[in-house]
């Protein structure tokens, strides 16, 4: 058994969801996504016991493209993130009703399929295909089931689509160039390539454009806030929880090892840019009035820090970045879900129109609070482990990076607590706010339990990813 089974299961799940009809769709999707999660867990145990779960076969002869899926610890960590979050996201949407829900859930499953493929693919062209494939479902999800004015939504979503697609084309060019050099798209062959400094530079920045838009790193982030705001919450969760991580993961997997010298040369610039994103995102978040937009900018700040960690080219930076990716994936899904729960009851995302919820719903408040605290990386949560490691790695490069990046500790606390205070605390709101249902609570509890457990005991994940990261680092440094 190898990792292709996960992909097949997800694809079959998407098709089955489509044919199951509107009523059953969400349940079918949940079952299949849970199945994929279980499957990836069992594959993980095979992998940990030394079994080989990678897969490689020829696909196209000219140009030489292989169906290569490489499952090392890093890829498995990301696959698990995807397959764990997908059922969670699907389950969290049980309180919503969608028109044509069979299409909706089929697209969600399909997106999960494409993202899993992106994480696993070890062949440049195959990877590119999955990378672009993931864009299609989210486009339709945001376009059709999004909220707000249809015209504005169309504009925002189209901008997002073209922007990311445009960025990716540069990556395609880079791949074409690399193919002309290596006569192969295979990851290992690309690693072995001996490129001159200027070639590396071109390839590096071609990749960078694609990833900087996807992650996003400022100033390439302009699509983000609006799409997050307009997309249905499920779409926002998929985007922020998993899709952003595609970009970050690709930085580690593709960009850095293929063009290591360029990465070393431009390291200070890249870290500087990422950290500028941290500060910029935090400052913009301070005065946001829309809850989802605020979370979008907080996400911008957090991924900035993760990207900075990636570009340090140290083991700490990379492993901290991966840890933080996973932690951020969970916490941001939880936070968007909290926003959705408020929206379900108050039909608003404007923070001024909330307030005084705490007295009515202690359970929800507590869970929301824990997520807010996790998001500001309180020690004991998983986010702290990631943030600490990333900041530590930054301090190894230059202590000023750590100090500037560390402002997220202060600013993050400021905007998150301000948001929490204005949305939840204060005099009891006149509008009734129903306590969370057990379905809603389950999602929160799973996320919180995950964050707290790995916050105190991150060792399993660290042990899983460290060998692969070391391998990548040896490729970078050789």
């Amino acid at each position, binding site marked *: 058994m190898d990792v292709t089974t996960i992909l097949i299961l997800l694809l079959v799940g998407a098709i089955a969801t489509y044919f199951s009809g509107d009523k059953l769709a969400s349940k079918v999707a949940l079952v299949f996504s849970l199945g994929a999660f279980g499957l990836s867990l069992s594959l993980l145990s095979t992998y940990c016991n030394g079994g080989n779960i990678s897969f490689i076969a020829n696909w196209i002869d000219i140009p030489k493209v292989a169906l290569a899926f490489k499952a090392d610890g890093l890829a498995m960590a990301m696959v698990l993130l995807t397959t764990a979050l997908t059922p969670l996201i699907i389950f969290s949407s049980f309180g919503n009703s969608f028109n044509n829900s069979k299409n909706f859930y089929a697209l969600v499953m399909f997106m999960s399929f494409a993202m899993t493929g992106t994480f696993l693919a070890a062949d440049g062209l195959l990877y590119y295909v999955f990378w672009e494939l993931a864009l299609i479902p989210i486009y339709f999800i945001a376009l059709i089931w999004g909220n707000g004015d249809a015209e504005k939504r169309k504009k925002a979503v189209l901008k997002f689509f*073209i922007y990311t697609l445009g960025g990716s084309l540069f990556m395609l060019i880079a791949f074409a160039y690399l193919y002309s050099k290596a006569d192969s798209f295979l990851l290992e062959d690309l690693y072995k390539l001996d490129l001159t400094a200027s070639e590396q530079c071109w390839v590096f920045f071609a990749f960078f454009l694609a990833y900087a838009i996807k992650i996003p790193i400022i100033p390439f982030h302009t699509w983000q806030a609006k799409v997050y705001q307009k997309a249905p919450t499920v779409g926002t969760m998929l985007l922020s929880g998993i899709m952003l991580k595609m970009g970050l993961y690709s930085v580690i997997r593709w960009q850095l090892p293929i063009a290591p010298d360029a990465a070393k040369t431009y390291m200070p610039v890249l870290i500087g840019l990422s950290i500028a994103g941290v500060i910029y995102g935090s400052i913009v978040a301070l005065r946001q009035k829309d809850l989802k937009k605020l979370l979008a900018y907080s996400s911008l700040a957090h991924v900035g820090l993760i990207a900075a960690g990636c570009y340090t080219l140290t083991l700490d930076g990379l492993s901290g970045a991966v840890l933080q990716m996973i932690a951020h994936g969970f916490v941001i899904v939880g936070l968007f879900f909290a926003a959705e729960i408020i929206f379900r009851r108050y039909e608003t995302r404007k923070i001024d129109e909330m307030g005084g919820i705490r007295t009515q719903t202690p359970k929800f408040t507590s869970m929301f609070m824990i997520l807010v605290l996790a998001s500001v990386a309180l020690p004991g949560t998983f986010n702290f482990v990631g943030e600490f*490691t990333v900041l*530590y790695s930054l*301090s190894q490069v230059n202590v000023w990076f750590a100090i500037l990046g560390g402002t997220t500790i202060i600013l993050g606390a*400021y905007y998150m607590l301000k948001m929490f*205070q204005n949305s939840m605390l204060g005099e009891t709101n006149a509008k009734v706010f129903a306590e969370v249902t057990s379905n809603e609570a389950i999602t929160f509890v799973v996320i919180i339990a995950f964050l707290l457990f790995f916050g105190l*005991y*991150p060792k399993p994940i660290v042990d899983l990813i460290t060998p692969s990261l070391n391998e990548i680092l040896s490729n970078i440094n050789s």
Partner: protein
Amino acid sequence: MDTNLALLLLLSPFVGFLFNIFFGKKVSRNVSGAIGTLTVLVSFLMSICFFAQLNQNGKALEIHLFDWISVHNFKLDFGLLLDQLSLLWLLFVTGIGSLIHLYSISYMHDDENMHKFFAYLNLFVFFMITLVVGDNLLVMFIGWEGVGLCSYLLIGFWHKNQDYNDAAKKAFIMNRIGDLGFLIGIFLLGSQFNTLNFSELKVALGGNLSLYTNICLCFAALCLFIGACGKSAQLPLYTWLPDAMAGPTPVSALIHAATMVTAGIFMVTRMNFLFDLTPEVQNIIAIVGALTALVAASIGLLQNDIKKVLAYSTVSQLGLMFLALGCGAYNVAVFHVITHAFFKACLFLGSGSVIHGLHGEQDMRKMGGLRKAMPITFWTMMISTLAIAGIFPFAGFWSKDEILMVAFEHNTILYVVASIASIMTAFYMFRLMYLTFFNDFRGTEEQKHHLHESPSLITIPLVILAILALIGGAINLPGSNWLNHFLEPILATKHEEHALGTHEYMLMGIALAGAVFGILWAYSKYIKQGFVPKQDSEITGFSKTIYNLYYVDEFYTFLIVRPLNSLSNFFRTTLETALGKLVFGFGTVANGLGTQGKKLQTGSIGLYLFAFVIGVLAILTYLFIAQ
């Protein structure tokens, strides 16, 4: 066995927290309070156990629980360290904690969310224990941030009032500024010495250090001190502490007087081997401490809110402790921490009792003459006030005197500043006592009618704390110096015993005279002249500046908060739009090219054909020429 007991010590309050969070609402208020109190009491008993054990064999206990975080050059364990310093801290944290829990059962009895209050208090004790027993800087950091969180939760406990929420938020953020410093300090130490474990750091720092390492150490020490400034409310990060009085009074007593704010002192004492190597930073600490003591004391002179006075007195006393730390006299600072914990907890709880008796009134201008109605509260507070003023033979006398003595040895100016702060302390504390308990009652008739002594659950902790404030100095009397000997294994440098010569007696005499002067000053103003502070609007001149806390908050708002907010607005409205337009610019350019380009498409087939033929000809011509 020891591991299990230590875990019991650590986790018992956490169990209490879990119980109160999940089941607190279902059981009666008294049960919820009792569980909360008992779990802390268990920790206290465990601490006594370990303390006795330590006294017997003198060996510190190190317990490794599990691996936590690892970075490339070192691994961090989740480990506990029970040595002299941490046990001392545990004793008074859990001891005073239990008393305050007991007090809260009665004080918070009418609050609908009493179970939550106890849950948060328990969580606080849990984090405080974590902070104290952690065997490395990062575990300490868990507790460090954790107590900040609990402080946030408890200050904003009455969350319907947005002012209280603001105060809570402010406390958290100010603490976080310090925490960033702390983290940077951790990074510097970690990268230099490949460990964050206290005992390993101590060994590593004992070796030969290069010049570069020494510079790093300086920065690390400075960063750690910034962390301590945040947590222990020193200049310039002190403004959160007075605001933190928004929380219920037991919280002020537990967190903002006796325990959490001493975390900074604990940390500096814990890292004494580091600070000893960096005399520059020690000087900074001493100066900051002395300045804080003076500034806070001067603000305290004119405050009318009973809790605000106590809050500023706390800041001022913490300043004195930092002064001692800066002089390298860690044991003296610890001594003052302990005595201060006794009398300040007592004072806060006493003020809580007064507020309770007056149904929430905190303005001293509306009090007065409570001596007869609340005798126990009065006498216990009186003892504590004498202690904080530094009157022989109360606890505060001994510890404060030692601080002044080390300050004198260190630098005369620091000594003078600290002495002035002490005189001010005596003045404003007696001002508080006179305004509250003497003369006639100035409140409403209805309040007067309801005046009563608080129930015994409130007075028992008061009495216990007052006794401790009376005799607490005994742990380090000149001559016996039990505390100094006890702490010897922890502190790298040993302080020679003060032989009580004329010199010392003279200093003691000056201190005592100063305190008496302060008291008499207050007496003449508030008893003899019967002076009552003016209404807010009538205060003018420099007093107004002081009364308004030197406008520090306004200054911070002006300097940091407002620019940040306008920057945010600028980014949000201007820069974001501009960037968005820039990206759209690509689209606009493409659109423009299309508009121009479509003019070429006239639709005339003849033209197309002509262009086609021309094109073919051009290619052919080119091919011929190329050949």
